[in-house]
């Protein structure tokens, strides 16, 4: 449930669901996000769900903080009958061509390459949010013994499709961008496809993802 609503500037609401990061709080955030999105309140122009916050920005020409706050306070988020979450399998190739930080992970985690992959693959991860760059999913939660810090100096260019880890999360770089997460492999899937106007994101908040290993040959032939 929303613990507190405040204003973020003069054109957004800041809905606080608590400070912890866990699935149960995040599911509440997603429930509100989906309910509000369905209802299409005039003047609300963006919703940004994250781990434990929901930011609702609005057009100050059409509405204001008080009106939107009143509306949100009277919403029954249980109304959302269909959360409509998907389970997805993401192929990932962990060949040395792609697993740029495997050595670093072996050192930090004090685990062998085989053990790292065994711990990471074939498990369910929950999509807490997408964003920072278009379509990038924040997936949790990794096993306790798989948690590594970011690179001290982020890479200027992380290749598109990189599957990477930091702390309790995994993510997928939806296109080439700067970044400091530990890269473990690469997926041939287009996780963000701007040509699909109605559904550019393959993975959405609330979905569950399982990483399945593929060989370099399978990777190369994937899109043929």
């Amino acid at each position, binding site marked *: 449930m929303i613990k507190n609503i*405040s*204003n*973020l*500037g*003069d*054109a*957004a609401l*800041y809905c606080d669901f608590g*400070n912890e*990061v866990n699935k149960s709080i995040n599911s509440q955030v997603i429930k509100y*996000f989906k309910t509000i*999105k369905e209802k299409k309140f005039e003047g609300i*122009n*963006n*919703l*940004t*769900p*994250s*781990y*434990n*916050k*929901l*930011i609702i*920005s609005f057009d*100050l*020409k059409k509405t*204001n*903080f008080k009106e939107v706050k009143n509306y949100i306070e009277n919403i029954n988020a249980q109304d959302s009958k269909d959360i409509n979450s998907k389970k997805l399998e993401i192929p990932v190739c962990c060949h040395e061509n792609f697993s740029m930080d495997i050595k670093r992970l072996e050192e930090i985690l004090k685990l062998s390459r085989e053990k790292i992959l065994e711990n990471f693959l074939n498990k369910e991860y929950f999509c807490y*949010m*997408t*964003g*920072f*760059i*278009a*379509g*990038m999913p*924040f997936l949790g939660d990794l096993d306790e013994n798989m948690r590594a810090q970011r690179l001290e100096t982020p890479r200027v260019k992380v290749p598109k499709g990189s599957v990477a880890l930091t702390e309790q999360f995994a993510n997928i770089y*939806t*296109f080439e*961008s700067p970044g400091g997460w530990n890269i473990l492999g690469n997926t041939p899937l287009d996780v*963000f496809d*701007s040509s699909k*106007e109605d559904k*550019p*994101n393959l993975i*959405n*908040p609330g979905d569950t993802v399982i990483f399945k290993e593929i060989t370099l040959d399978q990777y190369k032939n994937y899109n043929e």
Partner: protein
Amino acid sequence: MSSNYLDIIRPGINTTFQDKGRDHLYHIGIPFSGAMDNRNYLIANKLVNNNLDSAVIEFAYQGPHIKYSGEKINFAITGDVIFSIKKKDTEIEGKCYESYQIENGDEINIISTNKSVYGYLALGGKFDLKFQWNSYSINTKANIGSNDGKKLDLGQRINLKKINSNKDIKKTNYINTKIENIRVIKGTNFDYFSEEGKKIFYEKEFTVSKLSDRMGMRLEGPKIENIVNTNIKSEGLIKGVIQVPADGNPIIMLSDHGTIGGYPKIGVVASVDYDRLVQMSPGSKIKFKEINLSDAETLFKLYEMETQNLLSQI
């Protein structure tokens, strides 16, 4: 093939198509984009009799040099911009906030912006562009929008789908006003900062860094000390949010910002001051002034009325 088109002789530094922006996509990581200075964007369209949500060419610092081919057409430039118009045997210096008529073979050379960052070139008609997610705006970071989401480039040809048959020359005597201070509403992590840090934020001057772009405006100056935590759990961002990373130098989120971020938010720029904030060039001095929500709302309403009034007089 269209018979009315522009050829880009020199693209300029940061030349893109922009319009009113994109809504309803933050949750998938796509920011608002759109013209940085909304008021100047609207005036440019009105000066050439376009629909107010038409796409225009936005440039920063150095603008494009273009050659026009086709039927007579009106164009106008807004902002604080130095440009010339080259016809067969003459070259004249152009004035902002005034429309001109050009014809086959004429050139527009946008030399630079003067005391501002962004300028707008509107042509009386409709560019032949890709419309993506209800907008023509180019987002160069995610390659979204017209021109495959890329800046305009040397040698490119841009077609026009439609031309307004408007022969009038329109003008306005609008002047880009400078503002003394940038008004801000307290951010949701305001109390993360030391008493000294908060005082510095409101009392000291910051300098706009040259590392600023459509994503964010970086500021340099006295460091703002954080005493609680230099990171928060990543959460949503909006235009105008002022984040302070561990180095103590504030960054203001602008129209192409990342949709989520993990630095504490010390303040948010009031909507009324956004258009003028983005026009502050590197080296400009910024002072922040606290404002409450209700004053911010009232001032924005007045600003919006003033914009509508300006447009109705063109």
